[in-house]
């Protein structure tokens, strides 16, 4: 199986006023092409930092990362042509219309004006934003912004799509719409690397997942494998939930996590 994402001993250190902070401490990741891979962890665990390194947005202190077969540090532009990125904050320009934003994004990926206009229309249809396409983005709802952000990450038909908490702040209906779109995108063969704090989301969408805590991967496997491992280790009669796997992996209790991890039932 071809690897869509491959990270070896990935490290990120920041120099700050309080000294050196090691946000990511030797992460190894192997994501197969075509997978939906979930990357979970509490706040500050190193999820977003890892994603930023994999998407060329942040320098790598040590270790290596290849995405879609390209070394992200050695040839960042080649990596950028193969990946789509939708980060935690919907990265949109509120003064443009949805259509203008998608046309611009397509042109930045090398499309001609005519191709960009055509691609923008396809994507607006895909994410059901045709009616709002010529309105300024600042008037969009949170769900519409997320869908547009997703569309803008797809203009060049990326091989790997990185989504950093794509449903944070969305109401349950919008969340389900985004899930449906992710399944559809993955169905077309795009690998999805998804970070989320919503364990229900990971359980519903991900083929495999990794849990990061304190900058290190502490669990990795399919949701079923991780639950079975915990059930066996603890001698539980019923299959544990992914929430329990997460709490066990991160050494946290529900009390300690209050305010740190949000859990939702869709």
């Amino acid at each position: 199986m071809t690897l869509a994402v491959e990270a070896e001993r990935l490290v990120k250190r920041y120099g700050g006023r309080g000294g050196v902070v090691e946000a990511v401490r030797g992460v190894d990741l192997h994501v197969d092409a075509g997978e939906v891979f979930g990357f979970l962890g509490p706040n500050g665990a190193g999820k977003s930092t890892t994603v930023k390194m994999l998407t060329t947005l942040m320098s790598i202190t040590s270790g290596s990362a290849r995405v879609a077969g390209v070394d992200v540090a050695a040839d960042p532009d080649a990596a950028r042509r193969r990946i789509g990125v939708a980060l935690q904050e919907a990265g949109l320009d509120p003064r443009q219309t949805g259509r203008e934003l998608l046309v611009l994004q397509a042109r930045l990926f090398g499309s001609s004006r005519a191709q960009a206009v055509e691609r923008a229309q396809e994507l607006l249809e895909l994410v059901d934003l045709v009616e709002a396409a010529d309105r300024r983005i600042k008037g969009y709802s949170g769900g519409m912004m997320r869908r547009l952000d997703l569309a803008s990450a797809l203009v060049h038909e990326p091989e790997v799509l990185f989504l950093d908490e794509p449903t944070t702040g969305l109401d349950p209906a919008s969340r389900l719409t985004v899930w449906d779109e992710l399944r559809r995108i993955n169905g077309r063969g795009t690998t999805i690397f998804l970070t989320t704090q919503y364990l229900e989301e990971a359980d519903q969408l991900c083929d495999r997942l990794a849990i990061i805590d304190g900058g290190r991967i502490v669990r990795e496997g399919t949701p079923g494998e991780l639950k079975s491992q915990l059930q066996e280790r603890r001698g539980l009669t019923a299959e544990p939930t992914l929430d329990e796997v997460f709490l066990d992996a991160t050494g946290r209790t529900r009390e300690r996590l209050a305010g740190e991890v949000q859990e939702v039932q869709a």
Partner: protein
Amino acid sequence: MSQVWVLGQRALREALRTPDALLPTLFIPLFFLVVNVGQAAKIFPSGSTPFLEGQNYAAFQLPSSLLLAASFGTAALYLVEEIEGGYFDKLRAAPVSRTAIVLGRLFAEAAKSVTITTVMVLLALPFGISIASGPLGFLLLIVLTAAWAVVFAGFMQLIALKTRSAAATNSGGLVFFPLLFLTPSFVPRDLLTRPMEIAASFNPVTYIMEALRSLILEDFAWAPLGRGFAVVAVLGTVMVALNIRMIRSYD
């Protein structure tokens, strides 16, 4: 180049869709022009003030207002918004030349400055100001002012990229006021006190102001023009180079 063009067009649309930010760049400099002329015009009557070259004092003051209009650096504030809102990362995650990200905004800043300078000069003409160097001089006046707008926007973008803070970027822009007042803005350099003359001589804005003034008051005076264009060329090159360096190492 096409990336600079599409990013520049976007930055221009952004400016046009934010008239609340654009209009003060026209009205505040005009306000200063009216106030400064109102305060000092009687001291320098046209007929007995040799340095006015037969024009009125407003013609002497116009370059200060043009430079002020070109020194708002709003592009940098949009950049901070973009950084805070995540769109900047979206651009960085695309295979876009880092140079194009910098030049796109600066291109838009130059285009805005061309428009504002033209409007200001056209508004000034009915008040007895003329461009002594003619249509070509008018063109050079616009080009030089727009080039300064690029230099100053580049400076503000550096602060924006370094601090990622709207407050710090805004405060950084205020550096223009001491620079403007340390120039021969009210009288020619040789009429300043000695300490002020020395300070003005070290101030790059002085040479741009003198070049603009020469275009308004005299026929082509190549020495001040050469100095003015040389200053913006050097500062522009330095600012663009520093911006590109900063954006390339942006983490």
